[in-house]
């Protein structure tokens, strides 16, 4: 070992030097504005719209190729049906009915989740209660509760709201609670140091600090609620005189108005996309992204 090391030559002795920072002008500007194309292709919205356009073209071409409007109407047929049903048909009413029920259920779900989370953060038994209930009910699809809901509340909006609450409650409560638990010890101590206690401490420290998790819970809850509601309407929209979107889809399938079925499904997708990419994204940009709590 010692021999091997001594075989290696010592590094040469080199002279020392100091340099003054010179002119760097010859490599161009330190910062240069991006070209128009670079800026456009950096915009997520532009890229997503591009994908949507490609998908629509593929759909149209495929539908024209198989030529079976009863099974698979083309994109243009669907667009026409969508337009007709919005302007002349019942689609607006149907959509509004659905959204009204959805908002009621969503709000009720969040309110109950807030109560559960409050109990969970204030006592240890509450924490156990919430985790046990969540573990039990979170895997239970809301639709599976529908027969029971019908039995208890009869046909109509109360049953729908019951299943929506079930689908929103556990996701929101679980995420909010996880968020509260993850608030760093330093931030907690800083808040207490200012003399904050009780509800002021929760409102001014815990909720904003846990906001990324709370927002994630709200998004998941929204997606669950939306899916549950459309599915529930498909199952028993028959009963309510003013049915929702799910009922619209079901009704048109019975009448083999396939283009209308596609129009109904597209409405479901568009509303989902709008809420996700407009409402929630705006909320994110103005909160967690601005605060650097999420990229």
């Amino acid at each position, binding site marked *: 070992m010692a021999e091997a090391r001594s075989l290696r030559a010592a590094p040469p002795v080199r002279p020392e030097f100091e340099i003054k920072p010179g002119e760097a002008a010859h490599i161009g500007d330190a910062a240069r504005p991006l070209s128009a194309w670079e800026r456009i292709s950096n915009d997520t919205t532009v890229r997503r719209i591009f994908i949507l356009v490609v998908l629509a073209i593929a759909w149209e071409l495929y539908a024209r190729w198989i030529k079976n409007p009863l099974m698979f109407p083309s994109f243009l047929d669907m667009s026409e049906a969508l337009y007709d049903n919005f302007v002349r048909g019942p689609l607006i009413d149907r959509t509004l009915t659905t959204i009204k029920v959805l908002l009621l259920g969503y709000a009720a779900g969040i309110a109950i989740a807030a109560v559960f989370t409050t109990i969970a953060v204030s006592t240890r038994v509450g924490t156990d209660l919430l985790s046990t209930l969540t573990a039990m009910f979170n895997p239970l699809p809301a639709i599976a509760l529908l027969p029971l809901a019908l039995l208890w509340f009869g046909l109509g909006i109360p049953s729908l709201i019951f299943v929506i609450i079930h689908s929103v409650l556990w996701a929101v409560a679980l995420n909010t609670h996880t968020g509260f638990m993850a608030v760093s010890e330093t931030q907690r101590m800083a808040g*207490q140091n200012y*003399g904050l206690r009780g509800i*002021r401490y929760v409102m001014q420290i815990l909720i904003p600090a846990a906001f990324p998790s709370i927002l994630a819970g709200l998004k998941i809850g929204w997606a669950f609620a939306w899916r549950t509601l459309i599915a529930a309407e498909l199952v028993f929209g028959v009963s309510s005189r003013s049915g929702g979107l799910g009922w619209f889809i079901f009704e048109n399938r019975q009448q083999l108005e396939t283009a209308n079925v596609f129009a109904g499904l597209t409405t479901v997708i568009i509303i989902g996309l709008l809420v996700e990419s407009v409402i929630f994204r705006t909320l994110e940009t103005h909160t967690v992204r601005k*605060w650097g*709590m999420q990229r």
Partner: protein
Amino acid sequence: MDANGTDSARPLLEVDGVTLQYKTREHLVTATYRVSFKVWPSDRFVLLGPSGCGKSTLLKGVAGFMQPVEGTMRLNGRGIERPGPDRMMVFQEFDQLLPWKTVRQNVMFPMLVSGRFARAEAEERALAYIDKVNLTKFGDAFPHTLSGGMKQRVAIARAMAMEPDILLMDEPFAALDALTRRKMQEELLQLWEDTKFTVLFVTHSIEEAIIVGSRILVLSPHPGQVKAELNAGDFDHAAQGGAEFQALHQRIHNMLFAERIEQDRVAAHG
């Protein structure tokens, strides 16, 4: 008696025979055992010791986050029962700033929630203290856009703007790089020259203790017990190479590591 109602002829903070314990999942740990010291107004009082000597726990006790199992802690003659804005704390961690508030809002926040200052006055004071820590340009920036040193400056401005009876600093510069740390120590001393605040400063660095402190409490580990209380004199970074500084450094060093040398010797001979 001065304007704040503090009497400079009497200690500001009296810690008397304090034993602090905390629970981990498996153990009940005694962090400090019968520690006593007194902090006088305008002291730069340093708690110095190796890790495990309970210096941070002691600071948490003074902040009111922990109750002693034995002994008393009094601030201005009143027992410490819970956290409060009369003892502002500066933590080591950078996430002590609230990420959803700008620098200015962060500095204003404790002044507003404690109800001590009206909004206009809080704003004015916030701007003045942000200026004092040389962050005037960053008043409207969010914390995530700042460097570590800048975040600690904001935390110091936030604590000082409250004009607390005592400033509690828990290794505030430990997570900074060496150059920034040195600059921050100088700035802290400069701020002290301006307002002569009282600070209780925790560190594990002998050098930092001598430079920052005017009086040093040396603690031994497992559990933390008082080993000595020394006058740190007036050393700044320039005095670091000097003989007096080195002598004090060596003296504290020996104090902290004497036990280990003793143990090593026993082990070697045993």
